[in-house]
């Protein structure tokens, strides 16, 4: 056990701190872990949604790469209350990932260049999937690859693994030079990947689109044609930051993907455009930190939402969004959250 010695020369940071500190002696530390849990069955509002064949008790999942494989956040919330869990991107072979620095904070956001560090599909099935199966909520496995064949092989392997509810195909990761960006920005190549995955699995296939394109609708239409059952949008926006003292890029990878509240308006706009053009359920994401943010996506046309970067700031953000959605519906006399999907354009047209 240790104590902190007093520092003789130390002055209180503010003049009336002694009074306040006495007050706070009576104040207790509030433990937030697993507080105010939502009961999906008790709510008078129907929060259940169906995303291309994936049945979720509520519309909230996690952003791939921001929630690990689930157990990392188990101390802070009851994972069983989530609509689904979307895990870190998985490739056929293990990947080391990029050198550090891998992240940098930017105004109301962050850039990341993790480089798809992951243990590979075999180790995922062996070491991580059993835990997720125990949790019992739908598991969406995010997959990535360097070649069309890689994607197909991972999809085929996961098709045989019990406990996977669907595949989210990352054709948009901007960090891996050989795959990612090329697939994600060319409608023909994107369709090729989705087509190959479609042919390799019976599982629902979700195409995760990159925002780094001029025509997001063309991308969405192309992957829809190729057999996608749902769409996730958006992935991160390509960006960079420069250290002015060192006079060089902050990230070892030079460029990285921007996420967090800073990208929300871009994401909402893309969901709005795609939802009106393509008849597929959408998982909306990009800067969601609160239920109000999630509602913007739903009103723009998303059937479900993913909370990503916000988990880092508030590990309970997902469940707070679930609770907030239920409260909003109740307060506004909405019996089924599906009624709200696309409301902003359905009602104004």
């Amino acid at each position, binding site marked *: *056990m*240790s*104590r*902190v*010695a007093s*520092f*003789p020369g*130390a*002055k*209180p*940071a*503010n003049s009336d*701190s002694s009074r*306040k*500190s006495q*007050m*706070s002696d009576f*104040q*207790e*530390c*509030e*433990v937030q*872990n697993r507080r105010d849990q939502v009961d999906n069955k008790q709510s008078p509002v129907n929060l259940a949604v169906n995303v291309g064949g994936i049945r979720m008790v509520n519309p909230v999942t996690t952003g791939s*790469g*921001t*929630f*690990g494989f689930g157990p*990392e*956040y188990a*101390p*802070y919330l009851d994972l069983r209350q989530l609509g689904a869990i979307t895990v*870190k991107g998985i490739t056929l*072979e*293990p*990947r*080391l*990932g990029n050198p*550090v*620095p*891998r*992240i*940098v*904070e930017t105004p*109301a956001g*962050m850039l*990341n260049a*993790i*480089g798809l*560090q992951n243990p*590979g599909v075999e180790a995922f099935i062996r070491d991580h999937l059993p835990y997720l199966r125990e949790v019992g909520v739908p598991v969406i496995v995010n997959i990535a690859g360097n070649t069309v064949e890689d994607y197909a092989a991972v999809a085929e392997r996961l098709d045989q693994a019990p406990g996977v509810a669907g595949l989210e195909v990352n054709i948009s990761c901007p960090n891996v*030079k*050989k795959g990612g960006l090329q697939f994600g920005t060319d409608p023909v190549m994107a369709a090729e990947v989705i087509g190959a995955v479609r042919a390799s699995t019976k599982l629902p296939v979700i195409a995760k689109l990159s925002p780094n394109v001029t025509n997001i609708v063309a991308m969405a239409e192309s992957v829809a044609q190729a057999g996608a059952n749902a769409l996730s949008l958006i992935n991160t926006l390509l960006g960079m930051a420069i250290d002015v003292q060192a006079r060089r890029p902050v990230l070892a990878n030079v460029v990285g993907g921007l996420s*967090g*509240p800073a990208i929300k308006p871009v994401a909402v706009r893309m969901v709005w455009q795609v939802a009106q053009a393509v008849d597929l359920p959408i998982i909306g994401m990009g800067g969601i*930190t609160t239920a109000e943010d999630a509602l913007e996506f739903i009103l723009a046309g998303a059937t479900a939402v993913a909370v990503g*970067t916000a988990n*880092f*700031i508030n*590990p*309970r953000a997902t469940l707070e969004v679930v609770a907030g959605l239920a409260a909003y519906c109740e307060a506004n006399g909405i019996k089924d959250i599906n009624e709200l999907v696309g409301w902003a354009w359905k009602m104004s047209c």
Partner: protein
Amino acid sequence: MSLLCLAPILTQHEIAPRHFLLTFRAPAMAKVAQPGQFVHVRCGDTLDPLLRRPLSLHGIDRTKGTLTLLYRVVGKGTARLSRMQPGEALDVIGPLGRGFSLSLPFGQVVNEAVVVGGGIGVAPLLPLIEALLNQGSQVTVLLGARSADGLLGLKAFEQTGARVEIATDDGSLGVKGNVADLLKNWLTRGTVLPAGSGCVYACGPAPMLRTIWQMCAAHQIPLQVSLEERMGCGVGACLACVCRVTRTDEGKNKEISDDNNVKSSLALAADSDWKYARVCVEGPVFWGEEVLLDE
């Protein structure tokens, strides 16, 4: 078990220019906290700065149920933290990570310890020293800073009863030089750590850690280092905070580079003996023999 808490700040003092000592009440955290662990702190409730900031535990008081941080103001986050007032609630996750071990890898208790701290790196060392003294270890503390007034909380270290040696770059207190010099003197004086039960502990700037790491490897002395890296989640989920560690597991040649065009460290890794570990989970404290600190 790590907790997410709204913990009332009890006191906050500026103990040296831009250096603050902040104590908050969190009995459940204090009960399980170990020397070398850290907390992930939200510096205010706005979206900018967005991320939490990792800070080591400088004081763990189980009886009072309080934890203390010692931090330097370097940017937006710590500047905001320094403006928080007693009575305000600190949004904090912790305790996190793997702390210092009071015994050696094969279970022997550390009988003699040399604890080396540079600059703000002294923060996690106070509870370590107390724990070592508590278990009856002999402890020598080597502290370094640019000048005398950069020696943070020197009194507290002296009050532990451990022997304290000091080095300053400008010679304003103790030996002129850095802590690595102190350690070198200490090692060459012939006061060799007892084989099998001695250990060096170190926390400080990366160049200092690298020197000490090389020195201890050369002298075959067990070493524990506390590392820093930029963190996103702080709980092992985002893979932002990695450092290189040696591989002992099978299939070491299987982690292949995804880009054959670029001769980066990725390509090097394919046939090398290292992999990435998370500073927030597998660290922040690593054994010298497992971590790779060379450039």
